[in-house]
């Protein structure tokens, strides 16, 4: 064997082992979660309230809370994010100001989520008087997902071929008609994929809702957007660190983690399905 084929062989082996290692780690995590959580995981677990100081029962209010807060955050962030992306990509002149705005948005995506939490506390909870509530948490999570929604939407818009735009303009469409009737519909799969990924990130965040809306325990589902709520990631945190009988509730904690993972997995599957459906 020449030197070159040897080094090529080792390079290849290195890449393969790196991939296998990553797969093994993922497999291990899943296996661990399943092994320790499946005993507590049941239909009853998914659909009932916690009982006896959260040592028994289920996590329904947490599933409910995470779902509505995530949906609310998306409902708030989607129009803003898409609007902003359309402006930046389709209307804003390509100058330094636009580039500065774009860079700031990109940097916002790197701000630690606990900072969003503090910001939400001071602006939404206190400043705007929303109180610790579904609404304040939804706004905070919405802000958190905004940068990534803007970035993925811009990307999706950029990928719409110039020829499609020109086809529309050449028929006498105004720039807005062109965007609205041709560019946005063509970008839908990309936008939706980004949206769902943002959503699944929001579903798993703890820090932004910590000061803004999540409750340690609540006997009722939130009756309005001004109520507190329970959430899966925070419930998991409580069960694994703050509970008076941590060892006893381990299976519950694992089952909660499993639920959260399933939820995120389902969202990602939806993204995948949306993209596949639009490819045809």
């Amino acid at each position: 064997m020449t030197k070159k084929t040897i080094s090529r062989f080792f390079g290849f082996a290195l890449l393969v082992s790196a991939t296998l290692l990553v797969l093994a780690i993922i497999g291990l995590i899943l296996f661990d979660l399943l092994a320790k959580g499946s005993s507590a995981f049941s239909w009853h677990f998914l659909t009932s309230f916690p009982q006896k100081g959260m040592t028994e029962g289920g996590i329904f209010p947490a599933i409910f809370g995470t779902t509505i807060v995530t949906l609310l955050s998306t409902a708030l962030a989607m129009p803003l994010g898409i609007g902003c992306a359309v402006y930046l990509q389709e209307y804003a002149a390509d100058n330094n100001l636009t580039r500065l705005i774009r860079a700031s948005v990109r940097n916002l995506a790197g701000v630690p989520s606990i900072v969003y939490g503090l910001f939400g506390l001071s602006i939404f909870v206190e400043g705007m008087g929303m109180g610790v509530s579904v609404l304040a948490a939804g706004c905070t999570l919405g802000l958190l997902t905004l940068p990534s929604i803007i970035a993925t939407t811009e990307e999706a818009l950029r990928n719409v071929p110039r020829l499609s735009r020109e086809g529309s303009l050449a028929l006498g469409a105004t720039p807005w008609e062109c965007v609205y009737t041709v560019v946005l519909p063509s970008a839908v799969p990309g936008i939706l994929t980004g949206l769902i990924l943002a959503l699944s990130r929001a579903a798993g965040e703890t820090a932004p809702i910590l000061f803004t809306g999540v409750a340690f325990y609540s006997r009722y589902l939130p009756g309005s957007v001004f109520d507190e709520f329970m959430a899966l990631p925070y419930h998991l945190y409580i069960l694994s660190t703050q509970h008076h009988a941590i060892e006893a509730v381990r299976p519950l904690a694992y089952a909660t983690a499993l639920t959260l993972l399933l939820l995120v997995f389902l969202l990602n599957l939806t993204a995948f399905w949306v993209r596949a459906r639009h490819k045809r």
Partner: protein
Amino acid sequence: MEKIKLDVQALDLFFGKKQVLKNIHLSIPEGKITALIGPSGCGKSTLLRSINRLHDLHPDARLMGKILLDGHNILHRNTNVVHLRRRVGMVFQKPNPFPMSIAENVAYGLKINALCSKSEMRARVEQSLRNSFLWEEVADDLDKSALELSGGQQQRLCIARAIAVEPEVILFDEPCSALDPISTAKIEELIMGLRGKFTQVIVTHNMQQAQRVADYTAFMYLGELIEFGETRQIFEKPQQELTKNYVSGHFG
């Protein structure tokens, strides 16, 4: 002499510092088919796209000179571009149907320009599809996605879409370059069928095509308009040495 529909006067065009069109003078007669020929990169598409101001999308592009449409300079800053593009339709090199149904594609221009009522829409769509020889093939599939059509059908759909809004001028930028010979023949027949109804300008690199369809031909070379005249004259008795070399295939 026939009426001049489009009059290009002393047109210069720069992309940044690069001059792509040099002092173009060209008078395009109404209702006729005018071919633009020339080696690739000589500025044919660029000239064509000046006529419906598609360069507006390009911040780099600078145009000087005049293009008169019925005597009005469309390069003037006060020109309503949206209105201009309704009057001057365009068919592109690659078919670019919208990701919508066949009927919606044809109705698109009618809808956004509010050119007819909802009840007339169906008839206008059908008429445009008939005029572009596509009706027989798609009559039962009007609600199917336009993206499912073959390349040749898509291009005829794009022509149907363009003629639906009844423009005065239609610009074709190498409309057959992505098509097989049979589809090409259909498109040529279609273009010739529209002679008289519209003023048509067609860019082509195919000299046989120019001779088959065009009443007039303009030969461009390196951003300049070298010669313009009746198609027969350009191909049989070219006045310029360059034109002669190009049309006889001895180039370089």
